[in-house]
């Protein structure tokens, strides 16, 4: 019997591919965000509002990740931006390799901002680096105020928190101050925005902040 010491990160291959992606983004001068949230928080709606708001100001491309269908890519394509749909066929998260494959269908040169919309899931995407500059996590008021405590890895790994469906606050059991407190307890460095895709509340602030990053 022999013991062989390995001491290797399980996701080392993914991390290596993510670094390759990061190099590509650096070369083309593309700022990349990885949009994550539970299903139905409004990732695609925020993206639509952001595209509308940034129209003519910056060149954007989108990678959509979904378990099935290209419905989101269809929604995004209406804004006249290059979009590639990744269908994971049951996979609960995007991996760096999938993004790398998708990149072969996008001309990155001249693209200032690439938005990768991950599969709706607050657990698995937290561990997979895609080569992005930052993760942007969306929590909607309809999900309640305890999500940061239940899914700490995601909130800890994100740089931005968008609290969406803010217009529904009067109707749902969600304490906004508590939600923020919980999120900042997990990650005090989070930049927080409050938005509503129905009333467009907060979209301008978020878009301008994002624009300044590109």
């Amino acid at each position, binding site marked *: 019997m022999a013991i062989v010491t390995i001491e290797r*990160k*399980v996701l080392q291959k993914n991390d290596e591919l993510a670094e390759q992606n990061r190099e590509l983004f650096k070369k083309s001068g593309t700022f990349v965000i990885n949009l994550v949230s539970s299903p139905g928080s409004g990732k695609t709606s925020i993206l639509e509002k952001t595209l509308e708001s940034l129209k003519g100001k910056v060149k954007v491309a989108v990678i959509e990740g979904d378990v099935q269908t290209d419905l989101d890519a269809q929604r995004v394509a209406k804004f006249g931006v290059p979009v590639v749909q990744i269908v994971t066929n049951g996979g609960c998260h995007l991996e760096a390799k999938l993004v790398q494959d998708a990149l072969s269908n996008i001309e990155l040169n001249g693209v200032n901002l690439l938005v990768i919309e991950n599969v709706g899931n607050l657990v698995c995407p937290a561990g997979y680096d895609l080569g992005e500059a930052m993760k942007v996590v969306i929590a909607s008021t309809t999900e309640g105020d305890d999500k940061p405590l239940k899914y700490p890895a995601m909130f*800890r790994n994100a740089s931005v928190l968008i609290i969406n469906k803010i217009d529904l606050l009067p109707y749902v059991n969600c304490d906004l101050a508590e939600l923020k407190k919980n999120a900042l307890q997990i990650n*005090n460095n989070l930049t927080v925005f409050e938005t509503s895709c129905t009333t467009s509340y907060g979209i301008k602030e978020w878009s301008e902040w994002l624009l300044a990053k590109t």
Partner: protein
Amino acid sequence: MHELSIAENIIEIVKETLASSGGGKLRSVKVRLGELAGVVPDSLDFCFTAITKGTPMEEAKLEIERTAIIAHCTGCGKDSTVEGLIFKCPLCESVNVGVISGNELQVVEIEIDGLERN
């Protein structure tokens, strides 16, 4: 359920190691799993068992070593264990803390039968 993909990655690493160590039968794999890694130990064990079934690794055991979340405070410079997911230095109350342990997801070592080490 990304534990399946994690288990596949572990087995890939084990296979590579077995190949470069000159073969033998896998007895156990030790992995280090941080409490902030977002991986459920029971699910990982289940997936590992499921995908090694019917393979030469079928009898191998997955040993999971958990690591607590440890944060380094940039305020007072001390390290402390994060309890109850409160990322705040218990000594000086600063919230400027960086996680130095707890995200681990590593293959630590494997035990191989029928292989004498040189």
